Each structure stands twice: as structure tokens, then as C-alpha cells.
């Protein structure tokens, strides 16, 4: 029997988990959600995992990762004796944050699964919130993440049972940035599916820092889906810090819906990770909505990062700005796929898209595809992509002031990334990321650097370097 299980493909395993645990999975779900889960399972069943034969996955191959054996859990699973307070000890100097912790995809907290503060802000486990705040959760959950967009979104919709729930009611400004730390630490290969739901009412404000880390070198496959609703006149600053081990596969799909006069800034900083794919779906559904979707990636070795951005200008007078910049060393590879859709009525749209890359070696590769699809006639749109080396005139200028080769390269590479880093509005976070980018470029950043991981019990921290002499 055991052998049979091992011979099943990951897909079959997951389908079987669903069939055998329906009750468990559906616990707390609304009838609509149960129906959605079943529909989603059908989508996954018919499509399976994405393959590189598909246009959208042509340059990101997850087939090797899918050959691994993973354990998938429907209940929280942690290593025995784990000290949550220690593992989630996050240190960003001078930055006071409220911390949300997820361990192996499960919301963990010492103060109860869901917390509602005096101003009505609700933060907690999605699983628990379904029971406590069904009217909010059921109104939003699953309404934005289209199961037909991707079979992985469908899979997550079918099987994910927990994650983080954040609700900011109307006219509420959350002053202290929220920090959501997702850590993977396990003694077995693990397949994680977490689901996050973030709802901002009208005239609400939130700063959210989402850190994805691994603590060890264990193999993992994470399929995260996050739905974000930004109400009228509301504003969300969203930061993603990704510093994962080289054995991790991380598919991170985020769906954003923006209402009238709302504002989104989402900035993803990818320091390290085996294979990372960030899918951003941004729907501009109200006049004068404004979205900035940006990213920096610093990859080396055999690492792969893929940023997919789809911006839907559904109504007039909206603004969107995409800027993704990457530095690639060794045999690292990157993909950028930007798609801006300007619908027929979306006049006076401003939409910009840019992807710039520096390749440090002949083996590093970038596949970039900016794409505009415009049906309105009164719009300002632009797109561009560059792949190059460091500017020789700038190198000469720096050196002519006495700055040596390695520092000159470092300054220019850092400057290249800074265009995005400078958009970070939380000053202590900017300083921290600044420092991490510099360390990463100098080859001094380990996965034990970010937020957490001041752990002495772990294996020796692994250092990743970008070799400056190769520029």
C-alpha cells in the first residue's frame, strides 16, 4: 500500500487528499465556498499542474520540483519543541510592527486565533475567522482569485484551509505596519497551501510587510494565494520580502481589487529562493485608482524568479506603474511577463511598464515580455525592457575619483536596485532593505539574515554571493 502511494503522482495524491477529507476541508465553509472548492478541484483535475508547454509557463519549469515527494497536511504540523517566540523573533531596527506569524502555512499565535482591536481591525487565522466573522469572510473569500486563471489558484482554492485574515473597517488607519512572517521549517519535504484574505473598507489605510523565509535547507513547495480588496479612498502599502532556500519552490499569487480613488503600492524584493514565481493580478475597478507594482530580484546559482503582472484597467482615469529590476549572476534566470489590459471605456488611462536587467555572466538569462492590450483611444501607455551590463561611462567616472573596481560595481548595482528600493515609504524598512541589498550584492547575506532566524541550533547559515568580478 505504501509503495502504491509513493508511485502516485503529486496530482493524484492531492486529488485523493481532497476526496478522502472532504468534511475536514469543508469545515466552516459557506455553501458557496464548498461549491467553489468543488469547481476548483475540477479545474485542477482537468488541467493538472502547469507545464512549460503552456505559453504562460514557457520559461518557468516546475516539473523537476513536482517529481519530489512532498507531504501535504490538513492540520498544523510543526517540529516538536519549537519555540514560536524564538523563531518569529523579528528584528528590524527602529521599526515597531505588529507581527502575524505563519508556520508551514498555518497561522500561529499565542494570543488566540483571531484578534479584534478596539478600532474594529480584525487580524487572525482565516480558518478561525470563517467561524467568527462569516459575514465578512464569505462576502470576499474566493470572489477575486479566479480559478480559471491558473490551475494552481484552483488547487489552492480547493484545498487551502488556513492562512491570514486581515480586515480594516471603514475610516480606519492602521498606524503601525503589520508584519506577516511566513516561515517554513520541517523535517520532511512539505507541500504548503495557504490562503490569505485582506480586506480594506472605505477610507482605510494599511501597511503590510510580508516576509517569506525558510529556516533550513528542506525541500518545500508553497502555493500561496492572497486576495486583497482595497475599498474607496483606501490605501495599501504592501511589501514582499522573499529570502528562501535554494530547495524551495514558491508560487505566490496575489489578486488585488481597487475601488474608486484607492491606492496600492506593492513592492516585491526577492533576495534568494530556488524557484519563485510571483503572480500579480491587479484590477482597477474605480475611477482614479492608482497602482504601483514593483520588484527587485537579486539571483545567483541556479535560482529562478518569475514575475507575472496583469493589470486590468476596467474603468477610466486610472494610473498604473510597473517597474521590475533584476541582477542575475551565475546560471540564474528570470522571467518578466507584464500584461496591461485597457478596456474600451477606460479612457484617460496612464499605464507604464518597465523591466530592466543586468546580467553578470553569459549563462544568466532573462526572458522578458512586456505586453499592452489597448482598446481605448485616449490613453498614455508605455512599455520597455532592457538587458545589459553596467554603464562603462559611469564606471570610468567613479574610478576617476579614486573608487576601485569592486566598490564602483557595487555602487552601480546598488544604484540600479535603488530606483525601486527608494519607493519604500516605511523609513526603517527602507534602511533595513537597503542594508540587505548591499549585503546581498557583497555576498554577505545569508538566509539567516531576514527578520527571523537568529537561530543557533540550525545548520551553519548558507551564504549566497554575487561575484562582483564578473560584471
Amino acid at each position, binding site marked *: 500500500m505504501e509503495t502504491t502511494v509513493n508511485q502516485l503522482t503529486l496530482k493524484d495524491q492531492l486529488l485523493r487528499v481532497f476526496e478522502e477529507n472532504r468534511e475536514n476541508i469543508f469545515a466552516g465553509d459557506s455553501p458557496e465556498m464548498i461549491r467553489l472548492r468543488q469547481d476548483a478541484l475540477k479545474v485542477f483535475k482537468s488541467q493538472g499542474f502547469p507545464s512549460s508547454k503552456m505559453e504562460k509557463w514557457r520559461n518557468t519549469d516546475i516539473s523537476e520540483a513536482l517529481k519530489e515527494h512532498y507531504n501535504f497536511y490538513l492540520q498544523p504540523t510543526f517540529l516538536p519543541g519549537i519555540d514560536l517566540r524564538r523563531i518569529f523573533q523579528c528584528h528590524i531596527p527602529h521599526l515597531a510592527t505588529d507581527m502575524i506569524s505563519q508556520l508551514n502555512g498555518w497561522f500561529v499565535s499565542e494570543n488566540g486565533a483571531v484578534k479584534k482591536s478596539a478600532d474594529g481591525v480584525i487580524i487572525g487565522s482565516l480558518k478561525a475567522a470563517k467561524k467568527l466573522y462569516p459575514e465578512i469572510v464569505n462576502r470576499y473569500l474566493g470572489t477575486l482569485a479566479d480559478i480559471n486563471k491558473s490551475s494552481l489558484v484552483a488547487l489552492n482554492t480547493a484545498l487551502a484551509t488556513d492562512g491570514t485574515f486581515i480586515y480594516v473597517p471603514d475610516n480606519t488607519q492602521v498606524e503601525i505596519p503589520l508584519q506577516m512572517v511566513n516561515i517554513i521549517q520541517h523535517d520532511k519535504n512539505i507541500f504548503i497551501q495557504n490562503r490569505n484574505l485582506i480586506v480594506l473598507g472605505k477610507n482605510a489605510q494599511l501597511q503590510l510587510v510580508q516576509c517569506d523565509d525558510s529556516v533550513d535547507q528542506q525541500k518545500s513547495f508553497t502555493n500561496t494565494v492572497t486576495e486583497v480588496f482595497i475599498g474607496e479612498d483606501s490605501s495599501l502599502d504592501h511589501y514582499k520580502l522573499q529570502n528562501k532556500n535554494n530547495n524551495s519552490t514558491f508560487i505566490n499569487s496575489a489578486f488585488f481589487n481597487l475601488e474608486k480613488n484607492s491606492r496600492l503600492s506593492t513592492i516585491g524584493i526577492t533576495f534568494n529562493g530556488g524557484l519563485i514565481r510571483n503572480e500579480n493580478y491587479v484590477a482597477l475597478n474605480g475611477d482614479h485608482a492608482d497602482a504601483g507594482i514593483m520588484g527587485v530580484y537579486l539571483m545567483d546559482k541556479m535560482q529562478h524568479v518569475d514575475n507575472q503582472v496583469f493589470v486590468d484597467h476596467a474603468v477610466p482615469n486610472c494610473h498604473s506603474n510597473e517597474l521590475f529590476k533584476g541582477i542575475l549572476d551565475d546560471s540564474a534566470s528570470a522571467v518578466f511577463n507584464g500584461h496591461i489590459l485597457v478596456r474600451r471605456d477606460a479612457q484617460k488611462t496612464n499605464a507604464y511598464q518597465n523591466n530592466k536587467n543586468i546580467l553578470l555572466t553569459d549563462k544568466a538569462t532573462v526572458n522578458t515580455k512586456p505586453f499592452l492590450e489597448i482598446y481605448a483611444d485616449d490613453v498614455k501607455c508605455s512599455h520597455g525592457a532592457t538587458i545589459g551590463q553596467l554603464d562603462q561611462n559611469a564606471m*570610468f567616472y567613479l*574610478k*576617476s*575619483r*579614486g573608487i576601485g*573596481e569592486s*566598490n564602483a560595481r557595487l555602487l552601480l548595482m546598488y544604484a540600479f536596485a535603488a*530606483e525601486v528600493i*527608494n519607493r519604500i515609504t516605511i523609513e526603517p524598512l527602507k534602511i533595513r532593505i537597503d542594508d540587505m541589498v548591499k549585503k546581498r550584492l557583497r555576498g554577505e547575506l545569508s538566509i539567516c539574515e531576514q527578520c527571523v532566524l537568529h537561530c543557533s541550533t540550525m545548520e551553519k547559515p548558507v551564504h549566497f554571493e554575487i561575484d562582483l568580478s564578473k560584471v
Partner: protein
Amino acid sequence: MLSIKNLHVSINGKEIIRGLNLEVKAGEVHAIMGPNGTGKSTLASVIAGREDVYEVTEGEILFKGKDLQEMPIEDRAREGIFLGFQYPVEIPGVSIVNFMRTAINEIRSYKGLEPIGAAEFLKAMEDAKNLVGIHSKLTNRSVNEGFSGGEKKKNEIFQMAMLKPELAILDETDSGLDIDALKVVANGVNSLKRPENATIVITHYQRLLDFIVPDFVHVLYDGRIVKSGGKELAFELEAKGYDWIKTESL
């Protein structure tokens, strides 16, 4: 201080400088003049060490007795050579403060000195800013990014004031400057003049030399210095143009 003998420089196999000789001693100000395209900027870049475009095919350049051709660009700067660029490069994302601190500390480290202290650095920044009349905060500004032509040239002299070179080569520092900016820049250069330092001013027009008075004027034509003299040579050039030189040098 600087001794150039029989220098030949080519760009893509085409010889631009063809047997140039020049001696510059401490305390002197030399002006190099000449029509466009005669190799003035090439000379400046070659002394500073640019090698990806220019190839020195013959001759030698000694600075304080050391062979410059053996020295990478940054070491030439650390030894005390400063090039004021004709077209200063914009470097978005590199702050002027970080740029200057890195440069100063690398120069200090080369000389075996400790990194500059924060207070000392800030004072040097203030002094240098005042010298060239930069009033804006530089803290958050990137090197030359979005600067006007005049601001870029002021920024070159600002850097010169920060780095205190022994030999400053100012390549067409006057180009694109109005008379007020020109005075500011010239005043900056003059106040940095020391008996132990030297300056080479490269210019197309005599105008700058009203403000930075040279001890020697050289006329560069067709890759060679064809005439040298005192400051009165500049006036002669201004009055007669370059054509009589061309005729003479034939």
C-alpha cells in the same frame, strides 16, 4: 609633477595624439587651447586613465616620477590626479554623499589613513558647497542626476574641493556656462590653488582665462603642441583665431 614625452594615442586605429610633449611643475597653471577635434579631451582622458576607447601606442606619462600607464584609473586618482569632466556622467541612485565618502575613504585607505570621521566629512562637504555656491541639500541627490549644465560643472569643482588633488585637469569646464556660473567655477578653482598643486585648464575659448590666469598657454593642433607661450598667447589666439597657427604649423 607631470611629464609627458612623445605621447601617441589612437582611437580605433586612428591616431589622435601624435607625439605630444608637456611638462607641468607644482604651482603652475597650464592652459591647453586649440580648435575642436585636435585631441584636447583625448589627452585629458588618457592622463586620467581611460583605456577602453583610447590606446596609447607610444611615449610615456610620468606623474611624480611614476609611470601612469602601469596604473589603473583609481590609483591615478588616489595618487592625486583629478579630471573635471567636459560631460559629467549622471549616475541615478548613487547619492553624492555616498559617492564622495567612498571616494575619500578609498583614497585615504590607499595612503594608509583611517576612514574620515563623520564630523570632518560633513565640514568638508559644507566648505566645498560654499566654495562653489551649492545651496541645496545634497544628501538625497544622485550624482549629476537632473542637474543643469551649470550645476554639473559646479559639482565637478565641488568634488575637486572634496578630493584636494595635486593635479587637476579641467576639461572644457567653461563650456555651457553663463558668465556668472563661470565666475563661480573659476573662483572655486583659484581658491583651491596651492604652491604644491598644479592645474591644467583645457578650453576652446580665451574667456575662462580671464578668470583663471595661466602661467603657460599651449596650442594643441593635430595631435601635437604646436605653440607654447605665456598668458599673452591666449589673447593673441582670441584676436587672430586659430588659422594663423594652422598656417604656421604646416
